[in-house]
């Protein structure tokens, strides 16, 4: 009886029950038992028992049991497929928690807004760049012929190509749909009925309107540019010039290149076009002008050898198949043209429209602005440098406030909140904050975008208009930032153990000893100090350069471009003016352009000495206040002027002579074979405006090389003087514009670049320090809040407010000190390097600069600290201690 009434082995059943724990396994147990009783009927009890054990083990190791155990550890309703309900809950809880802690919410939003603003600017800017030229219907099939010129010494890339290139292609290759030549000329004074306006434009052909999607409002695109002396004006240019009259058929005159009939009016080139112009003149006018020598443009004969002054741009419309064919033809043309040329080899290639503005190569002779690869990546790096600290800050502040929220999380977990759900909760909170911060960032973006565009060369044509795509990009960016900033706190909070969290917040261990947040604060203050040092020393450098004694006078000197006017006539006419003291002539303006290198050597020696040279007349040295320390100046009457040179002190030192008088009379042979004599030595002066060390320099006298007149003036009424001079200029029969600049202004302009860097560093420094201080503020508020009771007790025991303030601030002051220890050496070496890179004669980072920067950082940091710690230290202990 007993044997037939056999039971499954108890220990196996117990093992299963014990292993399953709280998981529901009733049906599984039932299955097992049923199998057992089935088997007992046909097998021996022993093998049935063995089988039962086997089945139990198979269940214990099965996924079925594991899954049931996991499910059991949560409340049955805690897993739901209704995601929108959960999301609504996340958002509701997030909004509640954010509004409850207004102070921290504001700090976080502010910090993220600033941090994100640079990235928003970057996205906006990139959006504008990616749109560039896309309005052309043929955007994908337009190519530009570009030239790579190998001058043996260096390789140069030009966006222009020889003018006859298009003609050769048209003759030899029939398949091209449209090609267009554009000759980019300077600005001309455009006159109509006595009204004069400067306008810029291109010489181009009728196919311009076939290839590009510019809209011709009036006129026939086929004929508007087919005859010489025809001009098409843009709408706004025509409105300005004609003010209401019908422009079609009117005659306008352009500079000194003749009269033109207006044959069409076109819509203005939209923003985001690399072609920008106000006038289009028929291309065949160019040949006539060249014949009449009205336009100084290179001839067809030299266009294959001269690339610097070639302004012809060739655009083609090609299918993919044609691209390879045309490239082959271009190769053949280059081979044919340069096979016998030793000095110069050029090759031509096709550049897609998309790479004109955004490509990797920054071409010479570019027609429009260039914002290529390297600049864009540099900008991206800077963006991250500001964005990441802001994200860190958020993490910091959130985690340091975890005690306040630990109870909430504990309760959530106890009533069945998943780890994953807590995680989502915190991510949702951060994303909401970052979306709110996005509004602030976009506000900042609108404030700074125009200024930003202005500081960039060609930035004004970038289309910053906010499109739907851009708005979506902004929102995606905000969400990504939210997730990025929230991921650390979310991971941290979701791991909180509910038991410790509920037992008492104080028993929770927040961080390890060298905590992450401290590292972050230190890193941020280091970065801030780095930028402050940068601003201080760069500012010092600019000041130093402006006040540096370059060895020549800058005051009251007016540089006038001669533009081919005879020097003697110029002198006599301008000398008549009252304000003019003296006039000299020169081939260069110091600082405005570089000097070409040249070589000379002793007649009997092979070794050459490298020199820089400049051509001047006899008045130049006195006009600039240069000092002759030996020998004499060029003499007006001397016939030997052309064979004489005046050298600088460095040159005479290179000769290794002991007495400067010994240098006089030395004879040298120039590279072109001319023999010259030293007649004088001048004191060293800074001809490269501090950029490079002063080296060998010689003055020569050759009126043919003069390009500028340097007029020494003595007047305070600059306006009248300049208009008088302009009248004199006109009386010389000159139709070109009178270009005059004050020498000191020109030198100032040369240093403008440094000013721009100072501006950028100031802005970055401001962002970095604000973000750092917000981070610090968050931490201090937390620590003063949690230590309020301690402070109260200390106060009751007799501690002074001063002591308590120090006690609360000590930790943070130490962190700032550590930041200084890191940033000072890095800043010192980096900026010393940068300053000398910028110019040879430079300032060095001094102790005073560092002390000043440090004081600035300390005062800003201390102010942030004091705003919180003093309040806590002064609080009445009765208030802080009575509540419990």
């Amino acid at each position, binding site marked *: 009886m007993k044997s037939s009434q056999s039971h499954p082995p108890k220990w196996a059943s117990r093992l299963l029950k014990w292993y399953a724990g709280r998981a529901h396994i*009733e*049906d*599984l*147990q*039932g*299955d*097992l*038992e*049923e*199998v057992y*009783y*089935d088997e007992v009927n046909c097998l021996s009890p022993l093998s049935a028992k063995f089988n039962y054990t*086997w*089945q139990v*083990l*198979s*269940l*214990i*190791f*099965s*996924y*079925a*049991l594991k*899954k*049931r155990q996991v499910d059991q550890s949560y409340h049955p309703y805690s897993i739901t497929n209704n995601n929108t309900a959960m999301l609504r809950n996340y958002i509701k809880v997030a909004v509640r928690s954010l509004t409850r802690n207004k102070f921290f919410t504001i700090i976080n939003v502010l910090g993220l807004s600033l941090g994100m603003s640079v990235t928003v600017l970057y996205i906006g800017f990139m959006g504008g760049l990616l749109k560039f030229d896309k309005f052309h219907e043929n955007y994908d099939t337009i190519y530009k012929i570009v030239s790579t010129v190998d001058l043996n010494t260096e390789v140069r890339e030009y966006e222009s190509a020889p003018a006859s290139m298009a003609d050769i292609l048209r003759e030899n290759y029939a398949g091209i749909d449209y090609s267009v030549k554009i000759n980019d000329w300077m600005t001309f004074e455009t006159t109509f009925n006595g009204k004069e306006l400067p306008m810029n434009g291109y010489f181009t052909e009728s196919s311009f309107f076939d290839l590009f999607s510019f809209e011709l409002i009036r006129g026939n695109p086929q004929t508007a540019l087919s005859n010489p002396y025809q001009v098409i004006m843009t709408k706004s240019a025509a409105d300005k010039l004609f003010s209401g009259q019908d422009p079609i058929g009117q005659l306008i005159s352009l500079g000194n290149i003749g009269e033109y009939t207006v044959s069409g009016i076109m819509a203005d080139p939209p923003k985001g076009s690399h072609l920008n112009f106000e006038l289009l003149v028929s291309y065949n006018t160019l040949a006539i002008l060249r014949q009449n020598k009205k336009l100084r443009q290179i001839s067809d004969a030299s266009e294959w050898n001269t690339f610097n002054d070639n302004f012809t741009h060739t655009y083609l419309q090609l299918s993919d198949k044609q691209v390879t064919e045309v490239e082959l033809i271009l190769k053949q043309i280059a081979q044919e043209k340069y096979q016998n040329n030793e000095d110069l080899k050029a090759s031509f290639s096709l550049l897609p429209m998309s790479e004109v503005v955004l490509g990797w190569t920054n071409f010479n002779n570019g027609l429009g602005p260039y914002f290529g690869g390297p600049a864009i990546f540099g900008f991206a790096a800077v963006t991250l440098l500001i964005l990441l600290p802001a994200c860190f800050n958020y993490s910091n502040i959130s985690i340091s406030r975890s005690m306040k929220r630990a109870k909430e999380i504990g309760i959530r977990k106890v009533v069945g909140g998943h780890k994953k759900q807590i995680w989502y909760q915190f991510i949702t909170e951060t994303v909401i904050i970052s979306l709110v911060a996005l509004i602030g960032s976009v506000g900042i973006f609108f404030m700074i975008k125009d200024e930003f565009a202005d500081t960039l060369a060609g930035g004004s044509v970038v289309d910053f208009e906010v499109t739907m795509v851009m708005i979506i990009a902004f929102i995606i960016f905000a969400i990504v930032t939210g997730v990025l900033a929230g991921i650390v706190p979310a991971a941290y909070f979701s791991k909180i153990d509910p038991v410790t969290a509920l037992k008492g917040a104080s028993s929770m261990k927040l961080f390890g000893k060298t905590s992450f947040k401290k590292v972050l604060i230190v890193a941020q203050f280091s970065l801030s100090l780095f930028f402050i040092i940068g601003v201080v020393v760069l500012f010092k450098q600019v000041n130093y350069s402006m006040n540096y004694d370059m060895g020549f006078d800058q005051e009251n000197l007016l540089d006038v471009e001669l533009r081919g006017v005879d020097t003697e006539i110029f002198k006599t006419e301008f000398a008549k003016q009252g304000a003019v003291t003296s006039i000299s002539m020169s081939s260069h303006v110091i600082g405005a352009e570089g000097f070409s290198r040249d070589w000379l050597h002793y007649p009997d020696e092979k070794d050459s000495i490298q020199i820089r040279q400049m051509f001047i007349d006899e008045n130049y040295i006195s006009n600039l206040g240069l000092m002759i320390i030996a020998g004499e100046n060029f003499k007006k009457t001397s016939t030997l002027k052309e064979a004489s040179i005046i050298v600088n002190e460095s040159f005479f030192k290179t000769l290794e002579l002991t007495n400067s008088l010994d240098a006089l009379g030395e004879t040298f042979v120039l590279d072109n074979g001319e023999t010259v004599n030293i007649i004088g030595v001048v004191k060293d002066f800074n001809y490269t405006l501090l950029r490079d060390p002063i080296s060998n320099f010689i003055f020569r006298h050759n009126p043919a090389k003069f390009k500028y007149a340097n007029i020494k003036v003595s007047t305070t009424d600059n306006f009248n003087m300049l208009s008088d001079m302009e009248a004199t200029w006109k009386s010389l029969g000159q139709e070109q514009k009178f270009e005059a600049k004050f020498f000191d202004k020109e030198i100032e302009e040369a240093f403008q670049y440094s000013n721009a860097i100072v501006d950028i560093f100031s802005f970055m420094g401001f962002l970095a320090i604000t973000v750092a201080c917000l981070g610090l503020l968050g931490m201090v508020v937390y620590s003063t809040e949690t230590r309020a009771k301690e402070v109260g007790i200390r106060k009751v025991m007799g501690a002074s407010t001063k002591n308590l303030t120090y006690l609360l601030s000590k930790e943070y002051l130490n962190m700032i000190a550590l930041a200084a220890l890191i940033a000072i050496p890095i800043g010192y070496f980096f900026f010393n390097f940068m300053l000398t890179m910028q110019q040879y004669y430079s300032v060095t980072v001094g102790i005073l600069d560092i002390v000043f920067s440090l004081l600035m950082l300390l005062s800003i940091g201390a102010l942030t600290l004091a705003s919180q710690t003093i309040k806590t230290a002064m609080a009445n202990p009765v208030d802080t201690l009575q509540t419990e």
Partner: protein
Amino acid sequence: MKGYLGEFEELVLLTISMLGDTAYGVAIKEALEQKANRRITVGSLHSTITRLEEKGLLSSTMGEATAVRGGRKKRYFQLTADARQVLQQVKALRDDLWRSSELGFEQS
């Protein structure tokens, strides 16, 4: 097709549909063992069933208690609409492959 369906998963689904209203653990196990002529452990069967439930191909209800199970309830399984669709797709694919294979398509 909605997800990947393993060979054993397919067999389990088909068996459950064959058993109709009486598809619970032991019934499925025995039917499968008999038809496929292979030994199956309770653990591996329930693992597969659990995965099929996760995929949304099976749903289950608790049934009545019986003495032979020590008074424990049975859990009955049903195919979902998704499961029917997936099975159809699997079959269609097989048929198609068979038809174009060189083994020849034999209607059985």
